[in-house]
């Protein structure tokens, strides 16, 4: 007789049951996630690529990507057919057919045209944010990890940074609104101000140095996002700097490298993959955020792109479009989802925007996950 025969069937089946429950929990999460992706794709893909819709059509709806959002006009024409046109098309339509019958006219804000404005706005916001956050974040991480004396002070700073990484994004939005939008931050030299001076005005060179606030602007939004993502970037960069073996630094220094040469040639190159991953992760986080830009940068409707004749900001050294408000994908979605009643006509804009936006963010997220796994496999020393 086999002395190691399984003694308890009850235990075995209990184990199997437990494992199945755990597996089920796991796969329910996956199922929910995939269902959300599927549902959004099912509704949104036909808007972007009409060839997949029931009616069929062109391969890519270029209008959707290259037109600005507009008001959508719904009406019934002479034959009683329901039509919906973006307002500019509608105006042309009525011009072309002056005696066309237009009945039951109804307008839906933001629901016509395409999403060019929000796409461009989001790209600019992310660009401004990442440039600022990466320069400051990487430099700060290098300082904290390579230069600063590792005492209690640096430890406290590190702790503060880590804690700030968990602060809700809306709080950063509040701060950004108060600091970047309303607080006079930008020094401007002006002459001929007369007696009507702001609170802080430093007289110099026959004029005054005064400070202006940025208001609701691309720059304010980008900076707010940068502040939000800064703790994440600093922490991630420090981590990748720490992962570089001490031996590299010692070898480099022992060969007579200066501190900077050592960092440049023996530390940064090997921390780059980690920093890159962190930046892509940062882009993912920043692009998807709505709360911090709601009242610092974004507007619901704007007829033109940021660089098309922005309003003069009166700050001679700063490009005007930086101080102009922008449209942004997440805010656009918030507007159409929360404020526009969903009808057959308006659904296309909602579904299409959500789909394109999700696709964009998921692409970045996938790249960052891929990079991390890839580098983790590859970099071993």
């Amino acid at each position, binding site marked *: 007789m086999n002395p190691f025969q399984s003694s308890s069937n009850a235990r075995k089946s209990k184990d199997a049951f437990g494992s199945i429950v755990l597996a089920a929990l796991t796969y329910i999460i996956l199922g929910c996630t995939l269902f959300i992706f599927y549902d959004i794709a099912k509704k949104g893909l036909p808007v972007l690529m009409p060839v997949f819709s029931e009616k069929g059509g062109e391969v890519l709806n270029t209008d959707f990507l290259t037109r600005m959002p507009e008001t959508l006009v719904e009406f019934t024409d002479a034959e009683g057919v329901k039509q919906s046109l973006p307002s500019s098309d509608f105006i042309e339509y009525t011009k072309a057919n002056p005696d066309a019958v237009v009945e039951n006219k109804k307008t839906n804000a933001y629901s016509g045209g395409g999403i060019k404005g929000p796409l461009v706005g989001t790209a600019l916001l992310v660009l401004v944010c990442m440039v600022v956050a990466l320069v400051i974040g990487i430099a700060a991480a290098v300082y904290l990890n390579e230069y600063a*004396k*590792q*005492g209690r002070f640096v430890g406290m700073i590190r702790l503060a940074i880590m804690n700030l990484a968990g602060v809700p994004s809306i709080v950063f939005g509040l701060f950004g609104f108060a600091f970047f939008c309303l607080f006079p931050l930008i020094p401007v030299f002006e002459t001929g101000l007369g007696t009507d001076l702001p609170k802080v005005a430093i007289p110099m060179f026959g004029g005054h140095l005064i400070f202006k606030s940025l208001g609701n602007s691309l720059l304010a939004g980008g900076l707010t996002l940068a502040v939000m993502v800064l703790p994440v970037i600093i922490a991630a960069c420090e981590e990748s700097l720490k992962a570089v*073996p001490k*031996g*590299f*630094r*010692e*070898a*480099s*220094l*022992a*060969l*007579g*490298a*200066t501190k900077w*040469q050592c960092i440049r*040639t*023996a530390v940064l190159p*090997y921390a780059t993959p980690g920093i890159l991953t962190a930046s892509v992760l940062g882009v993912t986080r920043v692009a998807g955020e709505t709360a911090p830009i709601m009242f610092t940068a974004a507007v619901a409707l704007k007829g033109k792109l940021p660089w098309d004749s922005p309003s003069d900001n009166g700050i001679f050294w700063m490009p005007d479009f930086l101080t102009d408000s922008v449209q942004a994908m997440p805010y656009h979605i918030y507007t159409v989802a929360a404020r526009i009643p969903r009808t057959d006509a308006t659904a296309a804009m909602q579904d299409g925007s959500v789909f394109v936006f999700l696709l964009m963010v998921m692409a970045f997220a996938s790249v960052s996950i891929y990079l991390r796994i890839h580098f983790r496999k590859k*970099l071993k*020393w």
Partner: protein
Amino acid sequence: MSNSMNDTTRTATAPVPNNPNPIAKQDAMIEIDDVSFSYDHGQTNVLRNISFDIPAGKVTALIGPSGCGKSTLLRCLNRMNDLVDTSKVTNGQIRIMGQDINASDVDPIELRKQVGMVFQKYNPFPKSIYDNVAYGLRIQGIKNKPKLDEAVERSLRRAALWGEVKDRLGSSALGLSGGQQQRLCIARTIAVSPRIVLMDEPCSALDPIATARIEELIAELREEFTIVIVTHNMQQATRVSDRTAFFYIGELIEYDSTAKIFSNPSVKQTEEYITGRFG
């Protein structure tokens, strides 16, 4: 490096007198003069009043049980201890080629160009073999390709690695065996033509065959460089070194020619250590 010395051991070793210095001043490459060193702002000294001279063109071994301060002393010689913020030479002077290396106008970077170091754990950069050897020259601003080629070949030949790697200079250094990687690190160190090469237990991570190759290499390099080697392997000290210094808990117990130390030590503790009775 542990510096937790308890009082009983300290009193046990305290009465040992400093050895008379047997090397003539003019031959000394490195003069260590009454040096004390601390890792914690001078609260506890891990080296206490060390004095001896290291002769040029010879191999000097530093031996002693773990935590005796031999590695610390080695890292004082090219000021690698500067990397630890709280460390400090609390007393005495280290002079290399007559210059006090801790003087305010000494640039540790210039110092390290002259005093190279090979580490316990071989640490080639994850670059090509060529780039590893050329690294030190490049950071000194040498960009001339023929010059670099020549220096790389010369260093690899000197490190007895040329034959093994000459066909794959462009491949990653991490693909070499451990012993080869350590020899590559030695090649990298001697490529910048230092006067002194410090070796911190260079063979401790290697197998016996690789160790033997490194030891041969040390024997060859002694003509060109002043070598200071830390080892806890006493056979290795006898095989490679001309002179040996024995350390115990932060103090120099005995310093003499290797032959003398291992055949006829004058201090009882040295004898106990080399015969394996403690440590």
